[in-house]
């Protein structure tokens, strides 16, 4: 290799290495700065649910519970909607509508989280409160719907997360559907399939990629901070009820980081950040693997 070419390669390689370095540094820093908490509490940290830092109690179970519960609920709501949109835009809609619809879904994704949160506090929460208050007595008895109608709580969080996840999953699912060769649908049509059956054949072909798209949305929901913390109630309790105010990993870091008065408290919060980092990393790697198996970059 000529020396000028080598200098070029190293010259820009340094910047590329910086990118790599940053990611590694994040992992190392998080691990390092949570070592105090890791050593002190070990796995007990994640098994106990009493979070009372003032009294020295650090039980982080409510956070991981709240994160997963809200994200799974959001996924349950968002996935059919997102896939419906993806199918509509890529298979069903008239050519003229395609561009405006794509623009609108991108707009959904572009709205800042804080704006969703603001809308959440002043519009969504009162609406959810009204829904919760109007729940019939019979359903109230179920653990899923128990508790006073605060408005803030798991339901509001799941709804707002669903709204934010839909455009992500839908955009990736659309890309995946684009890679399905037209001949697959044509083969189905030629055998006398209805539109639904032909689309189903295409979606079957793309199933790995679609699962990847859904997982990507899941990863997005796991890490969402502002919108969630503004509507979830921020109460560290483990509860099955949709009405109960709860807490997520991202939300507790956002709310309590600046108030962490001692090194242990800070280290505990950073440990929560570390676990959040690792979980989202795993989900993202898995989802990307699934998507790339269909559509290599």
């Amino acid at each position, binding site marked *: 290799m000529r020396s000028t070419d080598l200098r070029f390669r190293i010259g820009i390689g340094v910047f590329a290495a910086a990118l790599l370095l940053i990611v590694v540094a994040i992992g190392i820093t998080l691990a390092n700065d949570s070592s105090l908490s890791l050593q002190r509490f070990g796995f007990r940290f994640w098994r106990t649910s009493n979070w009372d830092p003032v009294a020295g109690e650090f039980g982080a179970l409510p956070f991981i519970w709240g994160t997963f519960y809200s994200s799974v609920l959001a996924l349950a709501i968002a996935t059919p909607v997102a896939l419906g949109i993806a199918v509509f835009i890529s298979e069903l809609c*008239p*050519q003229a509508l395609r561009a405006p619809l794509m623009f609108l879904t991108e707009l959904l994704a572009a709205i800042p989280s804080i704006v969703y949160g603001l809308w959440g506090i002043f519009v969504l929460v009162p609406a959810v409160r009204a829904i919760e208050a109007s729940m019939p007595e019979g359903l109230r008895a179920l653990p899923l719907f128990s508790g006073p109608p605060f408005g803030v709580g798991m339901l509001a969080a799941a709804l707002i997360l669903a709204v934010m996840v839909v455009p992500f999953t839908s955009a990736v699912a659309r890309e995946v559907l684009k890679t399905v*060769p037209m*001949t*697959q*649908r*044509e*083969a*189905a*049509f*030629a*055998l*006398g*399939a*209805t539109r639904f*059956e032909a689309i189903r*054949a295409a979606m*079957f*072909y793309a199933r790995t990629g679609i699962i990847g798209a859904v997982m990507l949305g899941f990863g997005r929901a796991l890490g969402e901070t502002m919108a969630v913390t503004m509507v979830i109630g921020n109460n560290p309790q483990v509860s099955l009820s949709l009405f109960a105010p709860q807490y997520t990993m991202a939300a507790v870091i956002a709310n309590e980081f600046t108030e962490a008065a001692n090194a242990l408290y800070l280290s505990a919060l950073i440990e929560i950040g570390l676990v959040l980092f690792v979980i989202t990393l795993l989900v993202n790697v898995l989802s990307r693997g699934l998507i790339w198996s269909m559509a290599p970059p």
Partner: protein
Amino acid sequence: MESSVAIPRPTLKPRDPQPNPNQQLKIDVEHLSFFYGEKRALEDISIKIQPSVVTAFIGPSGCGKSTFLRTLNRMNDIIPGARVDGRVCIDGEDIYGPGVDVVAMRRKVGMVFQKSNPFPKSIFENVAYGLRINKMTSSKSELAGRVEESLKQAALWDEVKDRLHESALAMSGGQQQRLCIARALAVKPEILLMDEPASALDPIATQRIEELIYHLKTNFTIVIVTHNMQQAARVSDYTAFFWLGRLVEYERTDKMFTAPSEKLTEDYLTGRFG
């Protein structure tokens, strides 16, 4: 594709197609024009096809033969901006008429594509697909029987009978194409449209497909698009020559290849352009 290697030619004797004026036409196209938006791709095509014959569509690339083939089962409907003028009558009924059940029509008019397109499922499931969605069988054993029958008709049964539940994608190109033929045959169409079915295959596989066509035509009306003139000569009873979206000549194969009426046809057949 011209081959310089001497391939053992099957000794096919085309049945002598005597047009029987009393027999109802299987496919009767009247003044068909086809448009992609503003662009006209097919101009005023009229052709009458008898049942149980093999008709070949030949012509240079881009002459419209595939487009025309696809109008015969309304496959062009899925292209946005596609428009059709004229009539395509199958068994006397215009398939572009109002109130036509396209889904049912497509079951009757089967199609095999240029590049084999099996579903990413097992061999069995591929053939069973059409039977399932059209609910054509009422029991598992009936389904299995029909699958076996179709695979035998496509001359594939012996090769796959022990691995019916393996992935279709693990087969060779020629086998996949025969699978696609079996899949199309399973729904018992009356007409089989084949769009350059052997163009992606090696000569041996091509030969097997051609033999298959010969054996199938007793029970089906077959229309095959091919860019290989020798294939058309080997396999078909009638040949239609297309050029720039128009039907130039339509004639019995033996007559067209020995004494074509149009100069354009003769020029194409003798390789003066193409």
